[in-house]
């Protein structure tokens, strides 16, 4: 299940939904990304996220089905916010349930690594000198290539 949305999400109800549908799953792993209040250039008060409607959903669906091919998973949920988001707010959620914890950990980390390098989102940061487009991160590319070793 994929959701691209402007409004914030409720981690609590996301976890409860994963758990209510976990059936025989023994493990739930969640990842939440928050807007940091700093970056390499100074403090950040707000970010603004642009995306490519249509391709975004298609790319997240494809990431999740690749995760399901690789590991035995129960529930998978991905939420990504768009538009303006204030510092310390939630940006992204990945939740996975699985029979075995190793599968849940792997799938959750794979999905966020893959999302960071291939889902069409672009972030601007509001800094004291105005909005600036964020540069892509080589450590994200490295995190991704590890899955295709």
């Amino acid at each position, binding site marked *: 299940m994929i959701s691209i949305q402007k409004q914030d999400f409720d981690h609590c109800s996301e976890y409860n939904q994963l758990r209510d549908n976990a059936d025989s799953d023994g493990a739930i792993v969640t990842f939440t*990304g928050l807007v940091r209040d700093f970056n390499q250039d100074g403090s950040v008060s707000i970010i603004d996220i*642009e995306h490519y409607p249509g*391709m975004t959903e298609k790319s997240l669906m494809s990431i999740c089905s690749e995760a399901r091919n690789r590991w035995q998973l129960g529930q998978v949920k991905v939420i990504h916010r768009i538009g303006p988001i204030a510092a310390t707010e939630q940006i*992204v959620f990945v939740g996975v349930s699985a029979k075995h914890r190793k599968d849940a950990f792997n799938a959750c980390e794979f999905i966020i690594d893959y999302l960071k390098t291939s*889902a*069409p989102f672009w972030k601007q940061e509001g800094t004291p000198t105005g909005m600036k*487009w964020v540069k*892509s991160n080589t450590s994200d590319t490295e995190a991704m290539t590890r899955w295709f070793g």
Partner: protein
Amino acid sequence: MIQIKFFAMLRERIGLATLNFEYAGEKTVAEIKQQLVSKGAQWQVLAEQEVLCAVNQTLCGPESKVNDGDEIAFFPPVTGG
């Protein structure tokens, strides 16, 4: 006719979000990009920095063929999450 979309910094620098582009034939993504760059100053950004391309909403390499009716998009490396 193909539709070309631009996102994020490319959209800002080019000053366009969408371009309908007369098209017939069998060009590659790289050839279409080169044709855009030759249109003038504000298009240079396509040549000056790393640009990704999607054809019909799937990431593609520069040698991918573009067919009439396709939706093409050029954008900077993604920075979500």
